[in-house]
């Protein structure tokens, strides 16, 4: 199967920048939550950056993704604008969804971001159907559905996997196995060592990769994308990783063993990626530092933009319930 060689330096620098953007964005979002500038919650993607960025670096602009409640990383990796993201999660009119979606529902159709879904595993079927329809339309686009290890126990995961297989839908299921479903460890919820083996039951490949290794994730994604584009159907990629923050800003207590956290902090995907780039003399140490500073600056600018943006007009609450045309928000004829 055709898998490209090591990506070009500019691409690698962009990937590092995206990983740093995610890291900085989530840190800022947690801060803004503490300052009560973000409502509801924030589910940080911190520690898992190599998965979203590795996978999305193997996609084209015309490809699509679906995301989850822990979705900021996917959006940033797919190329969304930090300003419009931050505006959305701070509930501003200038946000991607005009303040109607918030942190858990960022959608950006112009970037192929079909939407973040806060029903665990809910968007797996959506990705599957979108992939099938794109194929029916004669397009060669693929759809990636990101989800967690906890989602692999939902019925819709199994229904989607089976349906995608029989329809040969060009969808890639990316299971971010971060080991914990809030407080329940993976081994208490799943009686097989890997989520990836579940693909066998549906007749398509399942692969395990180190989710903290950008290169491993990217290579697996490239294979899966090539397979999907060729019309050979879905792939399940299980990327083993860890969230090095609590489940969410709204649920700060964490019952995971501190030594486990330390272990995974030592495997930081951004540090590993940056070190590899420097070691291979692809990017200089100075440039790595510049990229980190650039990401922090971009997030600061995004925050300034968001906090200077107006709140939505209360009247907007009743728009967008129905597609334009004949219906009012409450489903009455105009």
């Amino acid at each position, binding site marked *: 199967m055709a898998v490209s060689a090591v990506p070009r330096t500019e691409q690698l620098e962009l990937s590092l920048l995206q990983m740093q953007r995610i890291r900085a964005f989530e840190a800022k979002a947690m801060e803004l939550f503490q300052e009560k500038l973000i409502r509801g919650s924030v589910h940080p993607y911190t520690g898992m950056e190599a998965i979203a960025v590795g996978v999305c670096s193997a996609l084209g602009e015309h490809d*699509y993704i*679906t995301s989850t409640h822990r979705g900021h990383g996917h959006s940033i990796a797919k190329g969304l604008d930090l300003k419009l993201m931050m505006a959305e999660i701070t509930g501003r009119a200038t*946000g*991607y*969804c*005009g*303040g*109607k*979606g918030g942190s858990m*529902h960022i*959608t*950006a*159709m112009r970037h192929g971001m*079909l*939407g973040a*879904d806060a*029903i665990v595993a*809910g*968007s*797996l*079927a*959506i*990705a*599957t*159907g*979108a*992939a*099938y*329809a*794109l194929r*029916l*339309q004669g397009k060669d686009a693929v*759809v990636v559905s990101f989800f967690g290890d906890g989602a692999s126990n939902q*019925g*819709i995961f199994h*229904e*989607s996997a*089976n*349906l995608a297989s*029989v*329809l040969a839908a060009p969808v890639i299921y990316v299971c971010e196995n971060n080991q914990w479903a809030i407080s329940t460890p993976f081994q208490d919820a799943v009686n097989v060592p890997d989520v990836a083996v579940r693909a066998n039951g549906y007749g398509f490949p399942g692969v395990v990769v180190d989710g903290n290794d950008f290169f491993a994730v990217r290579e697996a994604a490239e294979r899966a994308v090539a397979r999907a584009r060729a019309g050979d159907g879905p792939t399940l990629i299980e990327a083993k990783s860890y969230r090095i923050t609590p489940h969410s800003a709204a649920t700060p207590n964490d019952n995971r063993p501190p030594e486990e956290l330390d272990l995974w902090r030592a495997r930081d995907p951004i540090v590993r990626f940056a070190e590899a780039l420097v070691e291979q003399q692809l990017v200089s140490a100075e440039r790595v530092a510049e990229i980190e500073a650039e990401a922090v600056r971009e997030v600061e600018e995004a925050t300034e933009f968001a906090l200077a943006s107006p709140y939505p007009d209360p009247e907007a609450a009743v*728009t*967008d*319930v*129905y*597609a*334009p*045309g*004949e*219906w*009012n*928000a*409450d*489903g*009455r*004829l105009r």
Partner: protein
Amino acid sequence: MTTAVATRELTMSEALNEALREEMRRDDGVFLIGEDIGRHGGLFKVTDGLLAEFGAARVIDSPISEAGISGAGVGAALVGARPVVELQISDFITLTIDQVVNHAAKWRYMSGGQVSVPFVIRGPISNGIGMAAQHSQSLESWFVHTPGLIVVMPATPHDAKGLLKAAIREDNPVVFLEKRLLYARKGPVPESEYVIALGTADVKREGDDVTVVAAGATVPLALQAARQLAREGVELEVIDVRTLKPLDADTIAESIAKTGRLVVVNEGPLTGGYASEVVARMVEAVGIDAFRSTPVRVAAKDTPIPYATALEREVLPTVDDLVAAVKAMTAER
């Protein structure tokens, strides 16, 4: 209904089949997915012959996987396709209510209007024939209660065809509920193409004494009650709302202005049901003083649907129930 156009007699199944066939010919983006809809042509023949004309890519015999296929329909709609998902029996919508309520209905809103979801989910209400509690429910009020959905329930072959065509062209998700007992019933259907705008009621019978609001199977029930009451000098005006949501309240209000009396008949359970919504809505719309007697709901009893004939008859609303309600109302001073 005007009858100037040339018509022929079709069953509701045949009329729905024509709607699907015409829309699939008109728009390559329309595809069907459901259980036994291809080789078998659907358990009630609504999709008969469509596999042969449009092929397996557009008429998909799916696994038994209601959540999977309807979620896939939502995803397909997001990228511009027009999926029509068939539920073999509409009760099975409980298996995919998350995809309908949390996804189809909300995706546009959550995205701030970036997407539309042209998605139709259709299937039969199978009551009245001894299919018992899990195959006989009228669940329409759940979907009427969900912002973002449109809910349609046709009563005649003519309306079924025109409304399904409109539902497929609609940019919002539509829950399209068919009554299994009506599938085999024949009625006039125009030879030429037509579409019935969603959200428009149809006065199925004019009368000056009592306004009866019905949809789907309760329309023939109301018409039968009307024939019976006419012999006693009471004239019912039977309004078929056709689209439960959005409700064409204006047509009902006009009728109430004439009759001053309202009965809403519905096959769902009484409590929290569709009849309650219509009564409340119309009292607010026209004011209590517009009524000469208290508006009344005639609906199913608050029980699951039982199997035995005598039991099922006891639970579902009947012609006699409606006649009795009207008589009590017209006796009021």
